[in-house]
């Protein structure tokens, strides 16, 4: 049955002449549709590419043929294959005079080329010409291409024309010109800085479409600098008022809402303008209240506007009445059955609680429902909300939940994010040291390789410095509980490298500090770590350094250090290591062991990690050595900037930076060559070139012309003469050393690390089935556990008092929540089986024309255009078409319907196409398996992409720098200094 419908559709297509495409192309599209696997599809496409490569270079192709080839190229590229061999033909097609071809050419190049592609330069000229065309359709096509293709370099080429088009009689052109300027602003704000007033002017355009388009650039401008647009507040409010009162043409209505998209843009702008500005906000109150009243809460678009209103109200100076309306809408969202609205409700609630934290309490149960929803998106949004409303009283519940969720997901990107949020919350609100350490252990255990290195260093610092209060006792308690817990888990397999580093460092610094554990015990554990991770140099380095610290502390207090046999073998192994860093550390450890207590105390003072290291930039302690050398007749040191020739070089360098900015592409015609006389007069005022006047005048006249025409580079003369020297200097010259450099480069490289670690992300593989599933049916009976959870999350004043109590109360509350989870388990399994049962009888895969959603009664909008589709085969019973049970009489009806179709027009091709399309449908419906396989492929790929912690040189350098910041021992970068000190 469904197949028949498709045939009908194809026949209709055929009768339309296939929109001028050849049978060959239709066959290609069809065969790709029939492909059973990605591999087969790829093979078909590869064949097509070969064909196109051959055909497209043939001589005398008709333009019509060429157009089809280009569209086929677009198709190939859309399917993810490389069609770059044909780009140039698409570019050529934009040069064509016929609009039909030109449009195809522009479409193809905008789809093919990114803004930095080399071929763009070939299109600029055509675009320039087309922007001047009389035909507004040509101009529109060119402007569309401008928006996609013109990059920072080529903006000057088209800018004057685009600005001119702002006054074009056709509103479609004005609108596109505005969008083009907006794009220029995004690409290179400076290029259009002098044209910003145009946006203000266009705001008063007669055409609502142009006005609406102008709001896009204005939003960006206001986001960058709200203060200079405060005068527009009243205009925006007026426009919004008029729009809301349906003063715009009816054609802008959308589902009975007056121009909702324009309203939303205006609301976004008002939110920016009213932020922290009471006076501006007061202008908006009336119109916002009005919109709250007018919006249709039953339509999706009405809710979109309402949501934007809430955003606006929460951003501007608050008005109690508006906040009330906003809270009302929010609670309606949260109570809705639609997941979309719940999601928006959670987001809106997150905005409102910033202004009034009380708002959340009313919605406790709704929020918890969302938290336990099987929909991952909703769950994450809810975690975001919880993150925003964390306070000391509920931190334990929230962070526990977050960690549980973090463990359950595979999406590395989100895992990283939620891990760093856990860390942040734990640092900020930790109720007790023990809890803090335990939480950190959990986070590191499960997401250790994903969290930022900085987070680990932060943790070390926190353990070293304590929570900021000057309470030595509490700090040392924190340390000893950390040491204790680390010694407990250190033996566990598969701990992430970063976590091991933290453990080693803490054990090294504080392992023996409270005297609970003997040095040999801790050292033994550290040796085990180093042994268990033979391939991880960083962990080994941390372990060895920790052993060195422990031994040093022992020596300092005068105890004799007996090296354990495994420790000795570790040292022996590392002394022969391939890593010079490890070798260095091993030798250092050996040396330290042989020193006396006084020397050790000066190189390894105990608990000195928090002390600031002072850097003597002038290296005064070397003065004696220098003096001695000078006496012996050494050359005195000349500071780098005073060394001969250097001063000039730096000048040149600054010039070299200067010159490229004037290079760039030139789009205006070259100036007419000036008569030689002029060039001879011009150089005289160039003071810098005086010394080489004779040379330049005789042999380089053309250079002088250039210098004269570009006065800003008047010093090009000497620069070019000494160019050689400059190059040599760059290559061979002494690298300049500036003592402040490390710290600055340090911070920037940290950011880079940050970026890298966040780059990694993966697919969301829905794990939702594992989650406790609580149906979203109206809360007939709210379980007492849930109420308890709510109380612990949202706990009002009572729980706030509770937090003042000792940590035991916290522990009980945690036990409670565990109980909650446990008691929910049975219901969860029941629910999930129900869920599965619900899924099982789903109808078989739908065909192309079947529009019935698999489950009735969800978010089909009232005006579904596709509803009419079912009428394609005649107005016979739609529902029976959708359900595959079709009576014989009906199908015969439909066949007769086909008979009435203009078959004769299609002729013989019908017979060819009919069986093929039968197959097509069959194959398509067989494909879900393939889709599944693709999914697995995707997730498999992400498994292979963990953050690499290998011995990347830059990484280790950075880590080194960081390590030194937090007070870890010297490393391979300063070995000489170290041995000098030891004498």
């Amino acid at each position, binding site marked *: 049955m469904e197949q028949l419908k498709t045939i009908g559709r194809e026949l209709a297509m055929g009768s339309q002449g296939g929109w001028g495409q050849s049978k060959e192309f239709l066959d290609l599209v069809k065969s790709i549709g029939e492909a059973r696997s990605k591999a087969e599809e790829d093979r078909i496409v590869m064949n097509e590419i070969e064909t196109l490569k051959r055909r497209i270079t043939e001589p005398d192709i008709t333009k019509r043929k060429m157009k089809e080839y280009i569209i086929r190229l677009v198709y190939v590229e859309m*399917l993810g294959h490389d069609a770059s061999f044909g780009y140039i033909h698409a570019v050529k097609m934009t040069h064509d005079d016929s609009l*039909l071809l030109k449009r195809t050419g522009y479409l193809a190049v905008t789809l093919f080329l990114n803004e930095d592609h080399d071929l763009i330069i070939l299109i600029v000229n055509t675009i320039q010409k087309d922007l001047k065309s009389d035909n507004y359709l040509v101009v529109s096509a060119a402007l569309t291409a401008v928006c996609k293709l013109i990059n*920072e370099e080529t903006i000057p080429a088209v800018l004057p024309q685009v600005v001119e088009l702002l006054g074009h009689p056709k509103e479609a052109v004005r609108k596109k010109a505005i969008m083009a300027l907006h794009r220029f602003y995004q690409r290179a*704000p400076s290029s259009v800085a002098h044209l910003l007033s145009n946006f203000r002017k266009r705001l008063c355009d007669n055409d609502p479409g142009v006005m609406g388009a102008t709001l896009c650039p204005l939003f960006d401008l206001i986001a960058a600098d709200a203060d200079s647009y405060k005068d527009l507040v009243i205009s925006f409010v007026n426009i919004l008022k008029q729009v809301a009162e349906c003063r715009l043409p009816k054609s802008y209505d959308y589902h009975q809402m007056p121009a909702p998209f324009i309203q939303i843009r205006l609301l976004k702008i008002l939110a920016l303008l009213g932020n922290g500005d009471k006076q501006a906000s007061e202008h908006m109150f009336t119109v916002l209240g009005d919109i709250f009243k007018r919006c249709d809460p039953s339509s999706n678009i009405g809710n*979109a506007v309402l949501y*934007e209103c809430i955003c606006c109200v929460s951003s501007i100076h608050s008005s109690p009445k508006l906040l009330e309306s906003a809270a009302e809408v929010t609670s309606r969202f949260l109570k809705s059955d639609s997941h979309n609205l719940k999601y928006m409700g959670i987001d809106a609630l997150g905005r409102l609680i910033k202004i009034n934290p009380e708002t959340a309490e009313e919605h406790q149960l709704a929020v918890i429902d969302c938290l336990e929803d099987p929909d991952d998106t909703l769950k994450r949004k809810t975690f975001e909300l919880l993150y925003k409303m964390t306070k000391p009283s509920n931190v334990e519940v929230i962070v526990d939940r977050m960690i549980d969720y973090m463990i359950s997901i595979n999406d590395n990107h989100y895992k990283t994010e939620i891990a760093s949020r856990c860390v942040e919350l734990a640092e900020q609100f930790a109720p007790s040291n023990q809890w803090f350490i335990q939480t950190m252990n959990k986070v590191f255990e499960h997401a250790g390789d994903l969290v930022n290195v900085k987070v680990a260093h932060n943790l070390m610092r926190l353990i070293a410095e304590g929570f900021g209060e000057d309470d030595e006792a509490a700090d040392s308690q924190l340390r000893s509980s950390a040491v204790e817990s680390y010694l407990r888990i250190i033996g566990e397999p598969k701990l992430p490298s970063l976590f091991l580093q933290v453990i080693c460092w803490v054990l090294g610094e504080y392992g023996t500090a409270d005297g609970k554990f003997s040095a040999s015990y801790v050292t033994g554990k550290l040796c085990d770590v180093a042994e268990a991770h033979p391939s991880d140099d960083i962990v080994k380095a941390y372990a060895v350094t920790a052993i060195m610290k422990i031994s040093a502390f022992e020596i300092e207090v005068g105890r004799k250090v007996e090296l354990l046999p495994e420790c000795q073998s570790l040292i022996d192994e590392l002394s022969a290591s391939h890593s010079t860093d490890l070798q260095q550390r091993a030798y250092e450890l050996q040396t330290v062991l042989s020193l006396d207590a006084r020397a050790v105390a000066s190189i390894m003072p105990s608990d000195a990690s928090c002390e600031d290291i002072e850097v003597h930039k002038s290296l005064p302690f070397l003065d004696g050595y220098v003096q001695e050398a000078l006496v012996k007749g050494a050359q005195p040191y000349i500071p780098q900037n005073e060394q001969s020739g250097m001063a000039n070089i730096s000048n040149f360098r600054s010039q070299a930076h200067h010159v490229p900015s004037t290079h760039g592409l030139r789009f205006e015609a070259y100036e007419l060559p000036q008569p030689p006389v002029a060039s001879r007069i011009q150089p005289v005022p160039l003071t810098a070139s005086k010394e080489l006047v004779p040379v330049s005048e005789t042999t380089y006249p053309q250079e002088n012309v250039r210098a004269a025409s570009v006065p800003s580079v008047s010093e090009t003369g000497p620069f070019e003469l000494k160019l050689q020297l400059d190059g040599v200097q760059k290559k061979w010259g002494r690298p300049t050393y500036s003592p402040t450099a490390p710290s600055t480069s340090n911070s920037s490289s940290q950011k880079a690390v940050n970026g890298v670690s966040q780059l990694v992300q993966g697919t969301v593989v829905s794990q939702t089935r594992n989650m406790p599933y609580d149906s979203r049916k109206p809360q007939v009976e709210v379980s007492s556990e849930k109420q308890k959870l709510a109380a612990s999350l949202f706990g009002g004043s009572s729980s706030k008092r509770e937090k003042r109590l000792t940590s035991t109360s916290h522990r009980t509350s945690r036990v409670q929540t565990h109980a909650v989870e446990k008691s929910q388990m049975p219901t969860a399994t029941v629910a999930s089986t129900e869920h599965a049962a619900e899924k099982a009888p789903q109808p078989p895969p739908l065909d*192309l024309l079947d529009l019935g959603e698999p489950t009735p009664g969800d978010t089909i909008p009232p005006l579904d255009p596709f509803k009419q*589709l079912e009428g394609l085969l005649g107005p016979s019973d739609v529902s029976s078409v959708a359900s595959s049970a079709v009576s014989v009489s009906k199908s015969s009806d439909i066949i007769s319907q086909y008979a009435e179709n203009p078959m004769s027009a299609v002729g013989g091709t019908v017979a060819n196409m009919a069986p093929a399309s039968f197959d097509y449908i069959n194959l*398509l419906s067989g494909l879900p398996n393939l889709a599944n396989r693709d999914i697995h492929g995707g997730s498999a790929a992400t498994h292979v992409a963990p953050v*690499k912690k290998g011995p990347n040189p830059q990484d280790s350098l950075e880590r080194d720098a960081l390590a030194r910041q937090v007070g870890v021992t010297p490393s391979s970068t300063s070995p000489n200094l170290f041995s000098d000190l030891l004498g």
Partner: protein
Amino acid sequence: MVGDGEIAIVASCPSIFSVVGSASLKFGDKAGDFHNKNAKMIHFVLLISRQGKVRLTKWYSPYSQKERSKVIRELSGVILARGPKFCNFVEWGGYKVVYKRYASLYFCMCIDHDDNELEKLEIIHHFVEIMDRYFGSVCELDLIFNFHKAYYILDEILIAGELQESSKKTVARLITAQDSLVETAQEQASSISTIIAQATK
């Protein structure tokens, strides 16, 4: 080795896989404020069938061909697996993807994290309504065989990742104007060629 390759891919696609902040940090000089966090734009539009086949792709932010395949592969995995009652939004690598299913086709839009999802959902619907009017009750086959027409329509609705026209009538008028001009051009061409044919007879 495979892992290395994967990392290289990930590292070379700043626009989608990194958070907005670090992207602007890294590419700030090149693209100006392009990635600034206030710019709210649609990064791409994607039409995929229930079987995961690509029906239409339009990229408003720069992506290499490799990144594009990766995006499509990952997103179709995420979106096709979602239940019918779930929200129409997916958080995805620092961005959000709003999708809606029409018959066997999924319309997806990638937007910035703090944009209005419901609005984008309606923009998708707006697009579909216009196509419906143009094709006369549109179906997937229309898009399969006439994807370039769909591109022309999309170009009139979205430009540079922003909604440029919210009036269906205006869009329809422009598209018809283009089509009629194309038709007259075709007629002219054919009449000229017949004249030539007759003359050369």
